[in-house]
């Protein structure tokens, strides 16, 4: 082993190091663990960003968007009252990442930039129309989540760009959301299949629907056909059945150590339907605990 590691004390400091070829490390729960597992060696030159306090905050912009600093951890997001009440799908997702140590050190910025098609937070952030702010020595640019995620382990961010924060616009009243994953165990699990649903119900009718699939295609993506199947309906069993069919039809899964492609496709309909059911229930004011996945796997932890 050799290499270097510099601990950045300001964001400017960090982006200068990135411009000079260093790569960022925060909680290390993907980068360092990946190196230990032999996926990819640690980058020779690292810049540690864990001391950048300005990236650790969750704040509200004039009661409108929520701005999540890149270093906010899964544990902090899962416990945050505004995230739980308004962005419940994101709380569902953050509450089931890894184990309590992963959630204490793993960050929202790291989860996104690692760009796993099985990441928990991507579906919720995509369905909530989130934007990431990327900073480099030449300035800041904003990218929508679907423009950021390019493929398994790949983003469209340049190597010298630092994800600074994620902006999530205000979710209208009457909206319920959920993220549900198929899991073989309740902790230290990676989604076999995951689905996000964000549903707005007004006067008994679905007036907005967002559905995204996780671990079912090269990137997390929305399923327009499933959204169309829900729109204008009462969110009843007929609508759920056709949305679930649309989700299964959109799935392009791989076979790997966790599941075969056929099994994933079959389960896409089941998990998608569960996510929509929970989102509709929450939109109707039903109290369904976070994380929603635990409701289907034997307890709430």
């Amino acid at each position, binding site marked *: 082993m*050799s290499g270097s*590691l510099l601990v950045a004390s300001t964001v400017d400091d960090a982006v200068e190091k990135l411009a000079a070829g260093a790569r960022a490390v925060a909680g290390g729960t993907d980068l360092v663990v990946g190196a230990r597992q032999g996926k990819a060696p640690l980058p020779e030159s690292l810049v540690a960003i864990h001391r950048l306090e300005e990236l650790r905050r969750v704040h509200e912009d004039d009661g409108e968007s929520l701005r999540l600093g890149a270093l906010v951890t899964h544990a902090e997001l899962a416990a945050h009252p505004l995230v739980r009440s308004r962005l419940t799908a994101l709380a569902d997702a953050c509450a089931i990442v890894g184990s309590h140590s992963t959630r*204490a050190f793993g960050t929202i910025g790291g989860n996104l930039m690692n760009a796993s098609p099985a990441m928990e937070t991507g579906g919720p952030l995509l369905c909530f129309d989130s934007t990431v702010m990327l900073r480099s020595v030449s300035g800041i640019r904003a990218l929508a989540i679907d423009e950021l995620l390019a493929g398994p382990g790949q983003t469209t961010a340049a190597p010298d760009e630092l994800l600074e924060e994620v902006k999530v616009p205000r979710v209208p009243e009457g909206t319920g959301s959920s993220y549900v994953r198929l899991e073989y165990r309740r902790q230290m699990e990676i989604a076999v299949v995951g689905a996000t649903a964000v549903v707005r119900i007004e006067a008994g009718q679905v007036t907005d629907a967002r559905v995204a699939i996780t671990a079912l295609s090269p990137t997390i993506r929305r399923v327009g056909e499933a959204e169309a199947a829900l729109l204008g309906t009462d969110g009843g069993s007929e609508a759920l059945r056709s949305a679930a069919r649309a989700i299964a039809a959109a799935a392009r899964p791989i076979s790997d150590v966790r599941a075969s492609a056929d099994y994933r496709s079959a389960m896409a309909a089941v998990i998608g339907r569960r996510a929509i059911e929970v989102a509709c229930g929450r939109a109707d004011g039903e109290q369904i605990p976070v994380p929603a996945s635990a409701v289907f796997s034997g307890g709430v932890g």
Partner: protein
Amino acid sequence: MKVAATLNVNGIAYPVEIDPHASLLHTIRDQVGLTGAKEGCDDSECGACMVLLDGQPVNSCSYLALQAEGREVTTIEGLAPPGELNRLQQAFLEHGGVQCGFCTPGMLISATALLQRSEAPTEDEVRIALAGNLCRCTGYEGIVKAVLAVAGNGGPS
């Protein structure tokens, strides 16, 4: 090239000289000289290496030692004064939560972190919190009982 750093472990500042990519676990074991935290899988699956960093549980095998500089590390050796056991450690003995002992430091650290954020966790919450700590001997029953015995009964110390 090795760099000089200072790690605060169990309230004591230790000067260390380490590779910039060295893990916190190897630095604690090889340089600080505290061997309570164990290397099991070395890739964050088993939890045997778990320590507290500023009070939060971290798998020290997969955390870079230099990122722990300026922060407080607590290892199993720091849970009670030398030669003594705290209530949680005592409960592990009483309830059969220890067999070979290899997972025990990580289990105790993990349970300590749980009891710090939740005074009276349910059995389900205990099992969820300890899910990142693998034990191949006990079948977990004694461990869960030990944590529950201390929870809601005055805490770990």
